[in-house]
């Protein structure tokens, strides 16, 4: 592994200070399920590792009047066990539940999934449809960036080297709103999405979709919001024509690559199917509320 210097600060200020004054490249450590593997391959190098898990709030999830504030380092296993979160964001919880194994979920975090910025990250489409916002702290203060704008490319996000993701805020959804996330993998577990789709829908009392968000993953350099798919759902009762149009919009918006896990054609097709099915599941969940 690389030569490491390790710090586990207990305040945000100290963490940002470490990031902004480091003389060697800095890596922020949450669960380490991506980072430790990445560092194992680099034997001739050195890194400053800033473990942020001891900073108060980084592993917590607390409700305020209008949003859920998620500590970015909370493990997926802690997150998926929270019944209060499951009740409001079932799609976001099912996305976290799909990551890796039980062991990986014991360490992996939503903030790490976001900052690692894999195109196939399962929680990112679900965060996007729920209008999640990144709170970023740097030496000159804090800024807020929507998750769909946070990602800039494969493995890349907009954090400067002296900035830290300090919270993810997920607004409380409107009444009669729910979400769902589906991914395609050739196995039943322990795999990486070949394509993924998250949908959030709001239904009025007559079952007409009054608001929707659709985001797709593993079919472009980053997870992407697909407004045209949402527009196909809004104003409908999610009948077959509307679902078909939303599926076509997702397939159209996808910009996938062919690799050993799937071809361009396959991914384009499947991301549409997943969009349609996730929309139905989200709508059924509204009915169940």
């Amino acid at each position: 592994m690389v030569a490491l210097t390790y710090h586990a600060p207990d305040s945000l200020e100290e963490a940002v200070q470490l990031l902004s004054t480091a003389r060697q490249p800095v890596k922020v450590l949450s669960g380490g399920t991506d980072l430790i593997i990445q560092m194992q391959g680099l034997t001739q190098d050195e890194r400053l590792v800033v473990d942020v898990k001891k900073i108060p709030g980084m592993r917590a999830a607390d409700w305020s009047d209008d949003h859920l504030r998620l500590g970015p380092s909370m493990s997926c296993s802690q997150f998926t066990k929270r019944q209060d979160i499951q009740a409001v964001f079932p799609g976001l919880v099912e996305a976290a539940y799909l990551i890796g194994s039980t062991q990986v979920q014991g360490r992996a975090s939503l903030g790490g999934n976001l900052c690692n910025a894999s195109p196939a990250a399962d929680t990112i489409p679900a965060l996007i449809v729920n209008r999640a916002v990144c709170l970023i702290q740097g030496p000159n203060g804090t800024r807020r960036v929507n998750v769909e704008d946070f990602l800039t490319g494969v493995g890349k996000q907009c954090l400067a080297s002296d900035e830290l993701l300090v919270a993810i805020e997920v607004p409380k959804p409107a009444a009669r709103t729910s979400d769902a996330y589906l991914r395609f993998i050739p196995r039943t577990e322990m795999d990486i999405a070949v394509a993924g789709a998250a949908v959030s829908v709001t239904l009025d009392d007559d079952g007409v979709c009054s608001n929707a968000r659709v985001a797709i993953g593993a079919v472009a350099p980053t997870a992407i919001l697909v407004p045209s798919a949402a527009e196909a759902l809004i104003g409908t009762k999610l009948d077959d024509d509307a679902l078909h149009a939303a599926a076509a919009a997702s397939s159209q918006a996808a910009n996938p690559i062919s690799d050993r896990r799937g071809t361009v054609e396959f991914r384009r097709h499947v991301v549409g199917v997943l969009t349609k099915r996730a929309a139905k599941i989200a709508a059924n969940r509204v009915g169940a509320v």
Partner: protein
Amino acid sequence: MKSHISTTINGDSVEFLCDPSQTLLQVLRNDLGMTGTKEGCGSGDCGACSVILDGELVCACLVLGVEAQDAAIETVEGVAAHDQLHVIQEKFLEHAALQCGICTPGLIVSTKALLEENPSPTEEEARYFLAGNLCRCTGYDKIIKAVMDAAATMRQGA
């Protein structure tokens, strides 16, 4: 520069010196001589190095040794009570749920974590929970039989 780490392993206070680039797995096996925890893939895929860290089942190869500071760690060495095997270990023997044995310590620790969280798992729940523990010998059938039998026996004992 080595860091001085104070931690708790299987209920005992333990101190060790480690380089920050060492994983917890390397510290356990190479520095502390606790070779019950196995190294399989070294990349978090196989579960041979499963340990319980502050109540969470994790792969020791994906934890830095320095992260053990002030933590509570449970390894396979802590599963039996002295000479008395744990029910899970007895059932693995009874059902011949192992051949080469490399995956077994990880599976024992993971099964313990499963049954502490869910004492009455369905076979499907057990299979999903243990999906991160790879076994290339048994085909899993005997392992799942041992796990389900251990769960039933532990429920009767409770």
